């Protein structure tokens, strides 16, 4: 028994010691690698991009993965091209790895170096990575294509978005972040029949301020798929003009609440009196999301919306009346009315049916928030000057 326990003890002690040594050795090699890489980077920064022989000498000491790490950390563009080209000359293995013969990580490093070197076949490799179905290859490809930032790379991304070869929101984010002119290339997306693609077409057109697609977006505002209608009205909010108001107002009676909500938000830039009336009506919508959108939009419209909002304090729907009170609170309309009364408090007794109604219909928290802006004395003065809430509309 003793010998068995002793044997187990030796085995466990050996495993423990080995792990300890592993940790120490791993950290030692890591620190050494980092300091060596740091020295090479300093040498790179001191070298001119035109000094090819010096560059080749430095690059000969780097592996593809190490050069990839240096590129990822960032080099001046001219130096990046020069270094990657020097590596490309040195290593025939790059093309081999870029075709996917090695591991996924070798492939990513190889393609990144080839892309930095502006190799002819870079787009072909990147497209294959994007369509490989391996998430990590797709993510790396999107990152490299966005960094290349050319029309050709934008075209690959737009086609990939259309075909849905990777998470569409990620591809759209990459397209959105590029700086090369690409709005005219969105036609590939607008021609698609798939609702998901049309959704992203409208979203991107709105973001890229692609006015050339406004008429197509107007058509999409009446598409069968509600997500497309939603994206279209959202895009019209940034691309459209006053002539789109009728279309937006018609979407405010869409059967789906999120389309109504986005239509309400979209007309903030060019709302006229009629639109404001429609927005006020939406304060009593059957869905909370639409009421919130109408309330936020009216608050953003501000002063032009206040007369209609004040009328809404007498709305039969208590949520609509409360929302109207909240808009008046947020835009300062209620505070202005209170200030007028307080400033005039020494003079003739002044009535404000609007303010009285505001205090009557506001939810307790809103009422507390409004009164919290005033001192106790001001609150008393104000309340003393207000008629009961039944007053007629101003």
């Amino acid at each position, binding site marked *: *028994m*003793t010998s068995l*326990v*002793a044997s*187990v*003890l030796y085995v*466990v*002690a050996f*495993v*423990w010691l080995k*792990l*300890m040594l*592993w*940790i120490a050795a*791993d*950290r030692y090699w*890591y*620190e050494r690698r980092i300091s060596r890489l740091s020295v090479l980077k300093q040498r790179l920064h001191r070298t001119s991009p035109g000094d090819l022989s010096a560059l080749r000498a430095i690059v000969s000491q780097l592996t593809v993965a190490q050069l990839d790490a240096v590129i*990822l950390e960032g080099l001046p563009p001219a130096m990046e091209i020069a270094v990657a080209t020097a590596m490309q000359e040195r290593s025939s293995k790059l093309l081999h790895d870029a075709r996917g013969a090695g591991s*996924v*990580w070798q492939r*990513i490093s190889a393609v990144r170096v080839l892309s930095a070197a502006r190799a002819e076949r870079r787009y072909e490799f990147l497209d294959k990575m994007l369509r490989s179905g391996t*998430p*990590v*290859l*797709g*993510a*790396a490809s*999107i*990152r490299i294509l*966005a*960094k290349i930032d050319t029309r050709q790379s934008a075209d690959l991304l737009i086609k990939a978005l259309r075909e849905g070869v*990777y*998470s569409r*929101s*990620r591809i*759209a*984010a*990459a397209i*959105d*972040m590029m700086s090369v002119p690409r709005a005219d290339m969105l036609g590939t997306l607008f021609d698609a029949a798939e609702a998901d693609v049309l959704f992203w077409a409208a*979203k991107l057109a709105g*973001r890229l301020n692609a006015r050339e697609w406004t008429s197509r977006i107007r058509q999409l505002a009446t598409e069968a798929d509600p997500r497309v209608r939603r994206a279209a009205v959202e895009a019209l909010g940034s691309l459209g003009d006053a002539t789109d108001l009728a279309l937006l107002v018609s979407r405010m009676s869409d059967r789906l609440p999120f389309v109504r909500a986005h239509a309400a938000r979209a007309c903030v830039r060019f709302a006229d009196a009629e639109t404001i009336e429609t927005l006020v009506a939406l304060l009593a919508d059957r869905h*909370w999301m639409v*009421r*919130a959108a109408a*309330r936020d939009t009216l608050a953003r419209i501000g002063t032009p919306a206040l007369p209609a909002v004040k009328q809404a304090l007498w709305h039969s729907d208590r*949520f609509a009346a409360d*929302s109207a009170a*909240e808009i008046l*609170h947020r835009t300062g309309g209620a505070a202005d009315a209170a200030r007028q009364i307080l400033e005039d408090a020494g003079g003739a007794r002044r009535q404000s049916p609007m303010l009285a109604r505001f205090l009557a219909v*506001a*939810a307790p*928290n*809103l*009422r*507390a*928030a409004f009164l*919290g802006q005033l001192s106790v004395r001001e609150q008393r003065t104000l309340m003393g000057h207000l008629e009961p809430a039944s007053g007629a509309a101003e």
Partner: protein
Amino acid sequence: MSLETLLPLIAWGGYLACLLYLAILTLIFASLIGRAVRENRERVREASAEDFSIVRRSPFTIPVSVIAPAYNEEVCVSACVHSLLALDYPEYEVIVVNDGSTDGTLRRLIEDFELQPDAPLYRRVLDTSEVHQIYRSRLDPRLTVIDKVNGGKADALNAGANFARFRYLCCVDSDTVYNADAMLKGMRLVMPDPSRIVGVTSHVTLHSRPEHVVRDEQGRMRVDRNVLVAYQLLDYLRAFVWARAAWSRSNYMLCSVGAFAIWRRDVLLELGGFSSKFTCEDIEFTFRVHEHFRRLGKPYRVQALAEPVGVTEGPTSIRALVSQRARWQRVINETVWHYRRMLCNRRYGTVGFLGMPYYLFAEVLAPVFQALALLLIPIAAYAGVLRPVECLQMLVVVALGSAAFTCAAVLLQDRYRRTFAVGDLAYLLVLAPLDLFVYRPFIVWAQCKGTIDFLLGDRRWNKFERNPRTVLTERLATK
């Protein structure tokens, strides 16, 4: 049968049962480490392929509502909220729920963030205790504070969910200070497949005062030199770096930690929100999510990040540590007992055949075998079965075996993240073999206490007293 013949039999039987338990546990741990190595390596490489600069600026990045329940967190709530408002993420809101604190938590928030009363429209989808007032910050419009009647952490999270505007909810603790990239890292797992990934969790590291963590010139957090905190840190590493990473790989991540758990809001609402019927809400809700999706046969994933996203406060007194760990043991027992129907049930796949047996074997039964082993020592000594040399050898075997698993966790953490400065790494490695003698007895005691509390039907939270912050230590930390 006489006592002289019975006692050696009991001692040998118990001895063999404990050895068998230890051997099986060792095999389970070793297999988990094998899976965790692959999971850690892939996660780190995936992160290197991802372009965070696009994600952090894009308007198409999925927005998140952060919910931070706070109950008597006056000391660190402000640091927590500051860290949340500094998250490097394009669109999110922070909802702090003051759950009827009896200390100055609300006052501290009002002063530090210039809160003013507000009355936003919200849906009371989940039933919660009464909300007194809602505040918005003048300094940062993304911050909302809800002041409500005390109803427990689950109730506070549900109140926050009622106010949340976005599709994903990130439930956090208000005694934790978060890293700026926490949300980016968490949501990175969601972005490739939001329809399938319903939950993401991560883990946090420990410090006695998270609001005053010291970092070295490379940005690495210095390990707290308090021995108790350092041992807890090692415990966390073992739990998160290999255990949960391995569970996540096989999709039976059964514990999304309360300190950082991202959930899809529609899933939370569909399941009726967090439950107040259990001592802690986090483990139970994770079990419920697995149970729901597996029962319906819907594809889903709950994933775990193997890297820390923040620093939380670890107890520095034994009493506080025992109280906290006893609660954890109690909630594990409650949850495993409640969901016992999933155990070895084909319908629940890896959850039924790997996750549940693991919890039962390694968590629920652990105190039973630990107590048995301790009980056997005097019996075996009296019966003459146990010889001092063998006893000592066995203790060293268990100590070094445990240290080997700790080293494996440290190795994984250091190899893939280089979280520790060299001095801290050495400090942790020196502490590891002493775990069995310095730290483990308190954990065994806490687990036994938690099991007894569970059997007695105790449901109290037993929040541990916050570590003392003296004026002197505050000054030193500031320096």
